Every structure is written in C-alpha cells, then in structure tokens.
C-alpha cells in the first residue's frame, strides 16, 4: 500500500513536470504580450511582468488593417478549403466503400499511390506558377497540396464500409431513392463522427498552413495570418515599416511596442484554436487514434 501511494505520487509528479514543460512556452508568450515594452528591453521576457501593459493590444487594435485582412483571409481560406475538401473527400470515399462499384480497386490504388510517391516541390511549384498562374492568388492558399489527401479518403472509406449497413442502402433503393439522395439523406447523417474528425483535421490544417503562402504569395494583401506572423518573425523591421506606411508618423513609430506587439500577434494567431480546443478535443483524440490504426 505504501509503495502504491509512492508510485502514484511519483508518476503524478513526473507527468506534472512534463506538462509544465509543454505549457510553459505558451504562458511565457502570453505574459510577454502583456508586458510593458520598456521592461522587455530592459530585462527580457518575464513569466510574471512587473509592469503589466495592454499597450501592444491597443496598438494592434488601432493599426489593425493588416491584421484584420490577414485574419479575414485565414478564415475565408479555412472555411472554403474545409468545406470543399470534405465534399470532395466524402464524394470519392463513399463510392469506394460500395462493393458493387465498378473500377473500385483501380480507384483505391489511384488514391493510395499518391501517398507513396510524389513529384516533389519543384514540379509542383512550376505547375502551379507557370501553368496555372496561381502566384499571388487566394487559390494558391487553398488548392496546392491541401484540398484532398489519400489519408483522409481512406479514413472515410473505412468508416463508410464498416458503419453503414448494406441493408440501409438497399432499403433506400427499394423506396426509389436515387444514389445522390441516398448519399445525402442516409449515408452522411449516419457518418457524423468521421465527418467531425476529418472536418477538424482540415480546419487545423488550413488554419495553420503557412507553406503555401511562403512559396506562392509575395504580396502582402494575400497574406494569411500565419504568413503575416512568419514575416514578422523573420524580420521585425517588417512590422515597423508597415506601421510607418500606414502614415502614423515617425514619432509614433519610435514608441511602437515592437517586442510585446510581436508576441501579441502570435497570441491572436493561436487563440481561436486554443479557445475551441475543449469543444473539439473528443474528436481530435479520436481522429489521432484512428489514424494510428489505419496508418
């Protein structure tokens, strides 16, 4: 009994240490965004600021054109990409789950092979820039690489095949329903768990994507929030120049709380996901574990 309690105490202590290790940088980032900028310059980022300040957020709010536009682009891209991606995925996964469907195996191989081999960055880049002229368009943030992938298709197909009884589809036929009707009115409503999981993965993927923006977008007005953050991370001057361009005058720029503002921008980049996390956590964990089994 004594050793048992010691063991409980030990594992909780170790897990607590690891959890703190995971959470600590987030707390530091959040505190830094709330610290008076002069204090940061003087003594660095602190876990508990001596001089608490909302200055960074106030500046951001007052100079919010860039941030708002980027936020808008991220939301637009995330919503469009997730909706279109899920529609495409479900529409190919469902026929693949039907045993009597012609060319079923060929289709499965066609989808699966995309997971094994790829042409790499150079041909993809040339395709989308030279042949499709996607450079500096919103499509570049939605289409290349993200819209559909073999893994999600196979995840959904497996769910449809395992959880939609054949009899349900047949009874739909007997009632005279067409394929399309059966898909929308019977199959999809029965598949909410997998739709939630895949939808969540799409949302996180689009919200977090910065790679497409990095290679296909050079003009500021098409930056997603991640790309804006990326530019500011690699180049603090970018934040300064931009604020200057907005015509606020040099003396204001000199007082700009650059360090805390940079951290505050990162905070608003993660807040939506973190705030929604408790609500989607169930599906998130489920999706991760299904992913492991189906590889």
């Amino acid at each position, binding site marked *: 009994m004594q050793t048992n309690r010691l063991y*409980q105490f030990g594992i*909780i202590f*170790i*897990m*607590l240490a*690891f*959890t703190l290790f*995971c959470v600590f*940088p987030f707390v530091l*980032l959040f505190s*830094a965004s709330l610290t008076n900028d002069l204090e*940061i*310059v003087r003594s*660095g*980022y602190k*876990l508990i600021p001596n001089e608490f300040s909302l200055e960074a957020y106030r500046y951001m709010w007052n100079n919010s054109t860039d941030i708002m536009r980027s936020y808008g682009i991220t939301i637009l891209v995330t919503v469009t990409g997730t909706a279109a991606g899920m*529609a495409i995925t479900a*529409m*190919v996964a*469902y*026929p693949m789950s039907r045993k*009597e*469907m012609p060319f079923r195996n060929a*289709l499965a191989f*066609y*989808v*699966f092979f995309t997971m094994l*081999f*790829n*042409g*790499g*960055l*150079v*041909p*993809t*880049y*040339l*395709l989308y820039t*030279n042949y499709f002229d996607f450079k500096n368009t919103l499509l570049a943030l939605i289409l*290349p690489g993200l819209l*559909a992938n073999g893994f999600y298709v196979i995840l959904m197909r497996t769910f449809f095949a395992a959880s939609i009884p054949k009899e349900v589809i047949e009874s739909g036929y007997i009632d005279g329903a067409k*394929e*399309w009707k059966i898909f929308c009115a019977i199959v999809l409503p029965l598949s909410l768990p997998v739709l939630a999981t895949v939808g969540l993965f799409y949302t996180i993927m689009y*919200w977090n*994507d*910065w*790679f497409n923006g990095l*290679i296909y977008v050079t003009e500021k007005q098409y930056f997603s929030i991640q790309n804006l953050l*990326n530019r500011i*991370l*690699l180049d603090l001057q970018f934040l300064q120049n931009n604020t200057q361009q907005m015509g606020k005058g040099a003396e204001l720029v000199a007082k700009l709380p650059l360090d805390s503002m940079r951290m505050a921008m990162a905070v608003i*980049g*993660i807040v939506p996901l*973190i705030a929604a*996390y408790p609500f989607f*956590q169930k599906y998130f964990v489920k999706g*991760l*574990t299904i992913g*492991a089994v189906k*590889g």
Partner: protein
Amino acid sequence: MEASTKAYAERRAEAAADRAASWKQLLRRVRKYRTLLLMTLPAVLYFFINNYLPMFGVVIAFKNINFADGILGSEWIGFKNFEYLFKTSDAYIITRNTLLYNIVFIILNTVLAIALAIMLNDIKNRIVSRTFQSLILLPYLISMVIVGYLVLAMLDVEKGYMNNSILPLFGIGDISWYSETKHWPFILTIVNVWKGVGYLCIIYLAAIIGIDQEYYEAATIDGASKWQQIRSITIPLITPVVSIMTLLAIGRIFYSDFGLFYQVPLNTGVLMPVTNTIDTYVYRALITMGDLGMSSAAGLYQAAVGFVLVLVSNYIVNKKNSDNALF
C-alpha cells in the same frame, strides 16, 4: 486435324462471346452506377493535377531547363544535375542531417511516449489524467511559425527567458543561441519532442487502454511487481502498434519537417551546417537561388529513396503481421 481446328474455332468464338458479355456487363454496371462514378470525378481530377502531373515533372531533374523552350523542349542532360549535386559537400550534409535527426527523433519520441503513456494510464485520478492528456496535446495543435515565436521567446539573445532568467541561476553568462551551431542539435531535438510526443503518447495510451485488465489482476495475484507487469504485459501487448508507428516513421526517414528546420532556427545562415536538411535544401535551391536543376535533383533523390524505404518497411510489417501492413 479438322476436328481440332473446328474445336479451336468454337473455343475462340466462345471466348469472344464471353468477352463481349463481360464487356456488356461492365458497361451495364457503369451505366447503373454512373452517379457513383461521377461523384468520384472531382477527387480523381484533383489527384491527377496535384499529385500525378508533378510525378511526370520528375523529368526536370534530367534536363537543363530554360523557360524559352519549356519543360518538354529543354535539352536532356542525363544525370548531370545529380553529378553536380553529389559533387558538392551539401549532398552529404543534408543527407547526414536528415537521417541523424530522424533516427534520434524516432528513438527518443518512442521511448518517451511509451513511458508517458504508461504513467498516464496508471494515474488513478481520472480528472488529473484527463487534464494532463489535454495539455500535452497543445503543442501538436499549433503551426511551426508559432513554434518559432515560442522558441524565440525562450532563446532571444537579449530578451529571451534562457539568458535572462534561467542561465543566471546557474551562474552561466549569456549564450548567443542563434549564432552557435553546437546548441542546435539539442534545441531541435527538444522542440521536436515538445511538439510530437503528446500525439504519439495518446496513440500508445489508446493501445494500453485496450489491454484486458484480467492480465494485470492475474499478475498481481501472482505477486508480480509493477515493473514486471510493465515488462511482461504492457510492452509486449502494445508492440504491434509501436512497430507500426515506428516503421511508418522509418518509411519517412528521408523526409524532414520543413518548418522545424527552417522556421525554428529563423532561417539563419550560420546555423545551416546543422539545420540544413533535404527539404530545406530543395526549398532554398528553388526559391532563393532559382536553381531548378539542383533542387529537382535533390527532390527526386528524396522521393525515390523515400519510395523504396516505404516499400521496404511495408514489406517488413507484412512479414511480421499482414493485418498491420499498409498494402
């Protein structure tokens, strides 16, 4: 003689009729399921454009591309691009970095994830256990750009938490993290663990939860210690999942997380000897230097070796347990 010819002709006619019948049947099936077939079109088209067209683009690696002639019209130069690539020291460095980092990541992440999963499962208080689970998944949720910010907040030379608050505790002076290569193998490994272990841990935890409790009850009655139970029950029973995850990782050992090696070191030139991997090399050769030859050669080198590694690792899984194989 005549009889056999006749029989042969009959057989041929029969076979032809069979073929026609099966064609007809297929056509009938296509007509019957035309809606289903049409539904697959958007995805089929997307995969064709996004995945299959670039596969044909691998010919770029064997050409001296100039845009006046286009990809098809450009001159074939055989393996020249590969020759140039492997003559530089870059080829060795990026291969070494990609492989070594991945090997360290695989070993460290697997061991830590299993240990954490066992501990999480053993915590009796469900609420405490749930809270830990949620919190260790947080890093998995955010983009590498944000990770770059978090690392900067820790390591910034003037304002970072390390130099200002942690190192003084040990009486160590400031370290200029972003200009000394010797720290980065450790930093990148820690960041990778920080971001990835939570996810792997949850997968192994799910496997552990699936183990029948009776094994442990029987072992406890027999007087087995905690450590013996872990060694003789938990580990053997989660081995299938662990081997699948590990083999999947080995299949991707030639690929690296571009964000980790590009964003986290803030694309710093001096750090490149220890942060340049195949993915960052391909990106820099293409976008920064505009060197299509080198970058497509490196890309094809990666894709080809990666493809072989996936096949090999799948072959091994298949041999061990065909249920767990990918194909």
